[in-house]
């Protein structure tokens, strides 16, 4: 049957249901993963505002310390951890390289990513404590 004959026939046009993301666990986790970037971006925008204020001098610097903001920050931290976990877990799928002409196993790539993440967190943590003293 030719293409022309196909398109001449009436067809039922399939449409994505609005709740497609709620119909399957995998889709739901994907949407959550994507959504976590939004509050994270908002929190980082606020951080930029605070950095700008700190740059304007001690008189202008007034960090947000209200309870709702602390709760928001904790929620954002959890989102950031989840987003980082999913991102680094997928590194083994994306990165591909060879060492001594042999492909590096994806599991090793993922473990190295988490190792680097932990090391970077320790270094940043020490730096923050050092400057805060």
């Amino acid at each position: 049957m030719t293409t022309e004959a196909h398109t001449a026939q009436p067809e039922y046009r399939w449409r994505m249901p609005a709740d497609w993301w709620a119909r399957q666990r995998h889709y739901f986790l994907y949407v959550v993963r994507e959504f976590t970037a939004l509050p994270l971006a908002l929190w980082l925008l606020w951080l930029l505002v605070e950095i700008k204020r700190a740059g304007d001098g001690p008189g202008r610097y007034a960090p947000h310390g209200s309870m709702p903001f602390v709760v928001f920050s904790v929620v954002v931290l959890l989102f950031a951890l989840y987003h980082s976990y999913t991102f680094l877990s997928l590194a083994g799928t994306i990165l591909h390289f060879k060492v001594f002409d042999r492909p590096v196993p994806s599991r090793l790539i993922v473990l190295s990513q988490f190792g680097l993440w932990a090391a970077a967190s320790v270094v940043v943590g020490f730096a923050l404590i050092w400057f805060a003293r």
Partner: protein
Amino acid sequence: MPDKTITIRATRYDPEKDEKPRLQSYDVPFYDESMVVLDALNHIKSHVDGSLSYRWSCRMGICGSCGMMVNGMPKLTCNAFLRDYWPRPIVVEPLNNFPVIRDLVIDMDDFMHKLKSIKPWIIRKQEIPLGAREHRQTNEQIDDFRQFSECINCMLCYAACPVYGLNSEFLGPAATALARRYNLDSRDQGLKERLPVIGGAEGIWECSFVGECSVVCPKGVDPAKAIQQTKLDTTMRFVLPYGNRD
């Protein structure tokens, strides 16, 4: 007639009579633990209702023509065993994200156009005359693309992809995996001819890595991996000095 039966709820759609698809129930004898959904459909067509339309051919997971939604999941019906669902009913529908021609038959034209657009064949700048010599490859060179060459064009990955469901212009998983299969082939020299399609507005950058295409792939092709690796490679071509070489 065996005692055990299983209910198949199959989509029926006659474009000349029906406004939209509907489900029709059939009780099918379940006499053998090795029976698959395709067997049940064949039973319906042979013994109950000969007008039921669906595609199938090899019955062994090779031809890729019997893909349908089985209880909401894209599956090859020749590889979906009744024993995994019994005693619950099985809902069999046409693959999501495609227009329905009749009953369980979808319109594949969009996929065929996409497949052709990535030129899924070996492209040479200068063909070696037949009989002159062979294109030799090492096992390592074959391993580079072997996984992506397993694609059987069953389109389950398209049915699982919400990005394609929301934007049918998206090149999609299988076409990208096959493009990567040829781009990684040491005999191929057609990367620059495929780049405008795979790196274009509706190419790899539309993918937001849902990953479900790789979950449903019956051959372990991992199209999501092909897409993400292509993203990395095209970025490296752009960023690295001399990255845009052949």
